């Protein structure tokens, strides 16, 4: 049980680092795009209001939730490897 616990703890820490980095990166990319959009657009709102609104939409988006697959994919991968090694 100790080995499994160790794998899970180390895995969780590593994946959390990846998750946080990816989240920040993805949000920054979206912010950059929104800024470019504002500069091209009619500029009816202030830049800050436009960015806040856009990022709020982003926070609810599917793309942000897809980053959670950082946790899901390794678990699936390990399950598949366990099946292939031991039961096939």
């Amino acid at each position, binding site marked *: *049980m100790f*080995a*499994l616990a*160790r*794998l899970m703890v180390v895995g969780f820490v590593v994946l959390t680092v990846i998750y946080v980095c990816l989240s920040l990166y993805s949000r920054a990319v979206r912010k950059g795009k929104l800024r470019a959009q504002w500069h091209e657009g009619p500029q009816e709102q202030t830049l800050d209001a436009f960015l806040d609104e856009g990022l709020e939409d982003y926070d609810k988006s599917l793309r942000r939730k897809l980053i959670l697959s950082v946790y899901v994919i390794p678990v699936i991968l*390990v399950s598949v*490897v*366990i099946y292939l*090694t*031991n*039961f096939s």
Partner: protein
Amino acid sequence: MFGFIRWTFWITIWVLIAGVFHYTLPQVDIVRITDTYEKRQDFGENSLFWAQADTGTDGTLTNRDVFFIQTRRVKGDVMVYRNEDTGWGWPPYFKFDTSNLQAEAGDLKSAEDDARYVAIKHYGWRNEFLTIFPNAISVRAVDGPDASKGIAWVNIFIITIFLTVVYGIWVRWRRFRIARIDPTMEAIEDDLAEASGAVSSWFGTWRKKN
């Protein structure tokens, strides 16, 4: 001189990386299983090259019994494989079915005049000086000594991913160096050159004037 050190460093790093992959990634041998046995192992300097005790058992003891599979390869030489759980540890094969694999291997045993060939998937190295053995992952019966080993898709996939990541890091590092470090270093060198010019001209004032 500096170039020589740099080349030595990078060649060493890449040989080590290649070694880790060659040790860890699965390979397939076509063999004839001649016998199976188990033997107590007292791990010493070679303990790095042994995997874990069976998952769930007390893994803290200094020695334990290990299963082995004795084979003769198609080429004619012998190869002995160990058969150990990798459990939840490294390398990530998540192998828990060691005893089942030993039963399968025992079942596929054959003599030379009535040979049955099997494909044995394994990782690791055999080295007589360290007493280390490759770890068997799976066995399956094949038609004959010329049976195909299959294409190593997993190895191709993992190495491709690894090289892609390395290339990605390298490109970014190079861009960062050209943009940030090189100009700074040049500025420092320029400053140094200017400063040394100033110092030598100051020394010049000491020299005898002709």
